[in-house]
């Protein structure tokens, strides 16, 4: 019987010829990622060894990545002290994949991992962040877990008790219409299958719309697969993946381009023709509360957010600049831009994209996650509405339970920044 991508990766990671859905396995981990919550992982990790007489030593410091992105630079002495503790631990354990608050290496973890070639096709990647699903974009099996489970990974180098998940095949064919993007595709899919439609399952993406999509867009799709509850969102690696890893990340090693077998067994197949898609909006307060932009057009927006791990890559910022160049952000609306990494920040700085956005009135922020989850800048006032390219619109998400967050693509966000109300980008863009 043929295997899906996740089955093949788990078979390799457990040294078996075959695994099947429901098997319980303990896969070896190729990369273990944490951000500032590494402070919690360190506590739990040290606790495992306490009283055993053994020195707390991580299984392989070259396979651990720690990236500061949630509260950068530190917003409080508490955070600063946590970050200091992590730096000390990183130094003591010899963890080399560490990205501090620096413009020559910093950024959001889900951008840094592919950008530096830390994630590869066929890898088992775990992260103390639910959007670790992002790394399925390069053909890895990447999933989120909690701090205690990560402490066990740091100690053992494997994940305990992993049930081989069933796979849902998503086939997206066709070409996107103008100002319609991978973000609209993934929002549409989440709306279609619901916030728990892929719970305990893997989404595996196929079709011409995926094959023609750059890794940038694939990262958006895999990132938000989490919002359908998916354990992982895997895009089988192809020439585009290889090109990205070689050119962008400078990877020179052989790549294990894992493909599903032709007779792989899928629990369900979902087909989408992207040519029929218009811009999508996820309304408060669940990500599966999705509608076409027309349904909410005209709603007044106080804060536009473009960026984050979901949509803060160079092409996202360029789309925004194309729509805003020579125009201004509407009065009564503020616009915040969070590039996904400092590499992207500097590319957009040098190409003039950031100057165009700033000339239009947008505020260019540090590369980071803080605004999206409401812990670091960009909070909403009572009764305010945000339109954001981020990935969650839960109640309280942008720092205020009395605020509302609508999710959309960079084009819809930029078009709406000009008008100050939710706007179909196809009506603004030339």
């Amino acid at each position, binding site marked *: 019987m043929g295997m899906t991508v996740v089955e093949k990766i788990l078979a390799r990671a457990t040294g078996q010829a075959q695994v099947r859905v429901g098997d319980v396995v303990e896969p070896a981990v190729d990369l273990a990622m944490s951000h500032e919550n590494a402070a919690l992982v360190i506590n739990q990790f040290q606790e495992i060894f306490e009283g055993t007489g053994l020195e707390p030593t991580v299984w392989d410091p070259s396979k651990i990545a720690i990236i500061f992105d949630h509260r950068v630079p530190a917003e409080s002495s508490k955070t600063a002290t946590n970050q200091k503790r992590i730096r000390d631990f990183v130094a003591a354990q010899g963890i080399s994949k560490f990205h501090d608050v620096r413009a020559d290496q910093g950024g959001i973890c889900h951008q840094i991992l592919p950008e530096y070639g830390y994630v590869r096709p066929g890898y088992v990647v775990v992260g*103390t962040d639910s959007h670790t699903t992002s790394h399925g974009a390069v053909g890895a099996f990447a999933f989120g877990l909690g*701090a*205690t489970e990560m402490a066990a990974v740091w100690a053992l180098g494997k994940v305990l008790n992993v049930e081989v998940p069933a796979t849902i095949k998503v086939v997206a064919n066709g070409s996107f219409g103008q100002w319609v993007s991978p973000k609209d595709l993934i929002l549409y899919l989440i709306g279609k299958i619901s916030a728990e439609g892929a719970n305990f399952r893997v989404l595996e993406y196929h079709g011409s719309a995926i094959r023609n999509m750059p890794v940038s867009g694939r990262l958006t799709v895999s990132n938000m697969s989490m919002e359908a509850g998916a354990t992982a969102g895997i895009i089988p690696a192809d020439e585009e993946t290889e090109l990205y890893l070689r050119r962008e990340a400078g990877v020179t090693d052989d790549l294990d381009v894992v493909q599903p077998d032709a007779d792989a067994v899928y629990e369900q197949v979902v087909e989408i023709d992207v040519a029929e898609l218009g811009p999508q909006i996820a309304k408060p307060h669940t990500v599966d509360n999705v509608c076409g932009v027309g349904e909410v057009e005209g709603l007044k927006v106080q804060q536009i957010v473009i960026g984050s791990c979901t949509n803060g890559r160079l092409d996202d910022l360029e789309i925004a600049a194309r729509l805003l160049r020579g125009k201004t952000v509407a009065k009564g609306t503020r616009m915040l831009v969070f590039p996904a990494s400092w590499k992207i920040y500097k590319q957009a700085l040098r190409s003039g994209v950031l100057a165009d956005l700033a000339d239009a009135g947008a505020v260019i922020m540090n590369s980071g996650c803080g605004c999206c989850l409401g812990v670091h800048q960009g909070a909403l006032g009572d009764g305010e509405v945000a339109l954001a390219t981020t990935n969650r619109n839960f109640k309280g998400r942008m720092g205020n339970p009395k605020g509302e967050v609508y999710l959309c693509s960079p084009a819809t966000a930029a078009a709406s920044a000009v008008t100050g109300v939710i706007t179909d980008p196809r009506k603004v863009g030339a």
Partner: protein
Amino acid sequence: MSAIRGCAWTFGRDVDTDQIIAARYLNMKTAEELACHLMEDCDAEFPQKVKAGDIMVARENFGCGSSREHAPIAIKGAGVPVVIAKSFARIFYRNAFNTGLPILVAPEAVDGISEGDELEVDLETGSIRNLTTGKDYQAEALPPFMRELVAAGGLLPYLKKSTSER
């Protein structure tokens, strides 16, 4: 393990981790501190209303969203001995067992429980009795590894035990 008795607090579907514990409290250290803000964005009075021993009952996809372990820790910190739901989001499901919070998947029981009902829950067998209505329900059996985690009190004590036995 003896049976647990407690009153039910009921919640809808898709109760996300940000509702269970908002991100602005993630810098707090202890379970007790976190418990002071449990479900605050869903019901600002909840931290005052919930009493130790009360049982949380929810519909589908409880705990969806973030990987924050603070969510099950805050629930445990409030003295809630078990959460019963129609289904749990995967990361929360694992985090709950890892941090020593027992949870039960019991769709029929959830349909038969109203807020304030008194429940008797046997974690060993998964039997749930609604003492208010007199009806009995059976939760889905826990996978073997999760049973071991419940018995050990979470992943850390489980690992400490297996590390010292090595």
